[in-house]
């Protein structure tokens, strides 16, 4: 235990921690801050967010047909309010707009109507009209709930039908889950950079500084390598935990907790193989970030155990990180249970990456036992 702690102290130096702080500050402003400062991002996102909460309060986490009817009734009564507003303002009548339907269907007919429409929506930002727009979108979506938004393959179709039969159709505004997906990928990227920068030099440094001669002739001997690996994993885990805690405490500002009980398939355009609640989904993503972070920690340590210098250490990892940024995060995190990729793909990839990284370390651990220390 004391030895692990000693090795961890070599990783988590003040210098390194300060550097990580800088990296995180920069990446936070580059990637994450947008998903927190601009949530909900303008309109109609704000209205979707509000309406979703209202729906959950009134109908719970699943809407049956009766509740849907009620939702339509509310739409109609809100429409009445809109009509009253329009009638109270004579300029609409002058432009030939008598009611809400007229307003939305004929808006592009002429410039005068366009101006009036944008007056309400953009300049005065009247909540009622934005809300109506969102309600109508949800109703449209419900009316077409038997259609998938993309060309499905058989398995995807089966999954879709299965959910539909259970009465789990997509009914709630998707702003919250979209925002979370973007947020979590950006957090994932930030954490990936943090752990890779943290862990990479560690094993190489002891080698190039010729510390092995002393370390491996002490009582603990070559099993110190294993201690170092454990220390690396623990340090990475610690950093991941601290960063996750920090970023999620910021995420808490988004006020998405009312949605936590909602099944992820209840969100519009979010068809998934499994149907956890939003909160469970968040936990799943957190777990995924740990796994990705630790896989890359192990890869970084493997690379660090074999390369001759820092430049090679960085150079070898550049393609790995590139692939991860180009597609890895999309598949492994953003669409972790989405029907977009085949059901076996994501667990398969995690398995493969896990086996490769652990396998590499086991191989290197064995090698370390029989290696001549002569550099």
């Amino acid at each position, binding site marked *: 235990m004391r030895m692990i702690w000693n090795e961890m102290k070599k990783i988590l130096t003040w210098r390194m921690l300060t*550097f990580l702080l800088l990296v995180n500050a*920069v990446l936070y*402003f580059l990637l994450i801050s947008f998903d927190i400062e601009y949530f909900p991002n303008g309109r109609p996102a704000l209205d979707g967010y509000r309406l979703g909460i209202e729906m959950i309060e009134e109908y719970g986490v699943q809407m049956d047909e009766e509740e849907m009817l009620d939702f339509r009734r509310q739409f109609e009564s809100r429409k009445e309010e809109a009509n009253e507003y329009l009638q109270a303002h004579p300029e609409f009548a002058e432009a030939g707009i008598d009611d809400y339907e007229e307003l939305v269907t004929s808006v592009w007919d002429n410039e005068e109507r366009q101006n009036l429409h944008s007056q309400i929506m953009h300049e005065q930002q009247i909540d009622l009209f934005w809300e109506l727009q969102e309600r109508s979108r949800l109703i449209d979506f419900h009316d077409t709930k038997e259609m998938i938004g993309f060309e499905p393959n058989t398995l995807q179709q089966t999954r879709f039908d299965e959910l539909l039969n259970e009465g789990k159709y997509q009914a709630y505004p998707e702003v919250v889950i979209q925002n979370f997906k973007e947020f979590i990928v950006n957090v994932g990227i930030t954490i990936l950079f943090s752990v890779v920068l943290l862990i*990479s*030099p560690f094993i190489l440094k002891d080698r190039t500084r010729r510390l092995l001669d002393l370390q491996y002739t002490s009582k603990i001997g070559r099993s110190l390598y294993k201690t170092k690996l454990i220390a690396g994993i623990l340090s990475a885990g610690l950093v991941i935990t601290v960063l996750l805690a920090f970023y999620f405490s910021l995420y808490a500002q988004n006020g998405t907790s009312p949605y936590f009980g909602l099944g992820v398939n209840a969100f519009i355009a979010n068809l998934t193989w499994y149907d956890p609640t939003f909160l469970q989904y968040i936990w799943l993503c957190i777990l995924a970030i740990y796994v990705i972070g630790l896989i890359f920690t192990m890869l970084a340590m493997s690379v660090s155990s074999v390369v001759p*210098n*820092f430049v*090679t250490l*960085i*150079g070898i990892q550049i393609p790995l990180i590139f692939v991860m940024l180009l597609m890895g995060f999309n598949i492994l995190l953003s669409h972790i249970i989405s029907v977009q990729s085949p059901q076996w793909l994501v667990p398969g990839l995690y398995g493969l990456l896990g086996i490769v990284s652990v396998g590499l370390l086991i191989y290197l651990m064995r090698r370390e036992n029989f290696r001549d220390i002569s550099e």
Partner: protein
Amino acid sequence: MYECRKVIQSPIFLGLFLLFSVYNIYLIVSSSDHKEELKIVNELIDTYGRDISDTSLAQLDQDIQKEMTQLKRSAGLEFQSVHELLENMSLEEQEAYSQEQWNQIQQLAVKEMYFNTARSIDESYAEIDIQATGEGEVRMYGLSGSAAFYLLQEYEKLDKRFEELVKNGEQKQWFFAGKAYFMHSFLFQTVFRHIIIESLLLIVLATALITAYEFEQKTQLLIFSTKRGRKLMKDKFSASIAIALFTMIFLLGITLGTFFIVFDYSHVWSTSISSAFNWEYNFPYIAWWDISVGTFLWLAAGIVLAGGLLISCLTFALATVVKNSYIAFAGISLFFVAVLLLPSFMSKSSILFFITGYNLSQLLLGISNSFMGGGLTGSRNYEWLTVSCWTLIAAGICFVAYRRFTKTDIG
């Protein structure tokens, strides 16, 4: 030069270079579905000349009509435009055509699209209100005070330039339709950004390797006590610059070579970059000067080279101070992103909001909008001012780092 050899003989550098080249080639080839359609522009230029005039347009119209009559006869259908024909065509009907006929229809449709766009250039350019766009930007970014004033002024200048451009007829030249193919964005944003980021990674690695080499190989005591002594850093500097230059030239060469083999630009080199066809989003590209596509390409490559060399200088300075390639690499990467973000920390009412935008990261990543008006980095002087300011800064930093190095203890 011995210093260069340290990089060239490093397998990781060559490996990465190859990997990047292969990836760029893949990127270009995999987005080349429409390369045949692009050739229609070449055909148009061959037949009707580069400049679009009323007479050449009338000629084109006639030719299209002629082909259409033929088509109507062979199809036994009545239609106003190919667009209409295609719109109303069912899958079965489509399959009734032979491959050759089908290609002909497609070609004709594309020509028609070019014709329609060309015909409406005057109309669509008349609708462009540069001042109003400027005001829109001010509102969108929430600018006020001197920042807003500055931006509006810039747009005023752009307005004058726009009038001049229209008068010159720079917009009336054939180019690949922007809204259909986004060739400008693909080349100068997607492809160039790849080249830029890849070269920067290679350059920073190579420079850090060369500069910190002796300290990492523990040969510093030996090397810096030779006759050449600490002046060796000068050699290292030249070597870094040389490697950076070669890296960029080769990467640009391989990538752009592939690009122009795949996409036939042979006829559009002298088309103005401000062509009305080079209109992809809400706003056409309006260059501050009357520059052709070819010239723009050279200028863009020039910016890449300048930017890469400057980054190499900065890396050299940092690596000289920290004597560790890992920290130098991470530090420069951090710096690159940090200056990219710099303007967003400035007050939106202050001119600093714009001044801080004159930085290398913004210049390099926004390369597709170089020399163009509009936007936050759309000032006429933006490019040369940024490059020269940063040359001064980099030179200063390098000089200080070198001076410091000549006096520092080597342990």
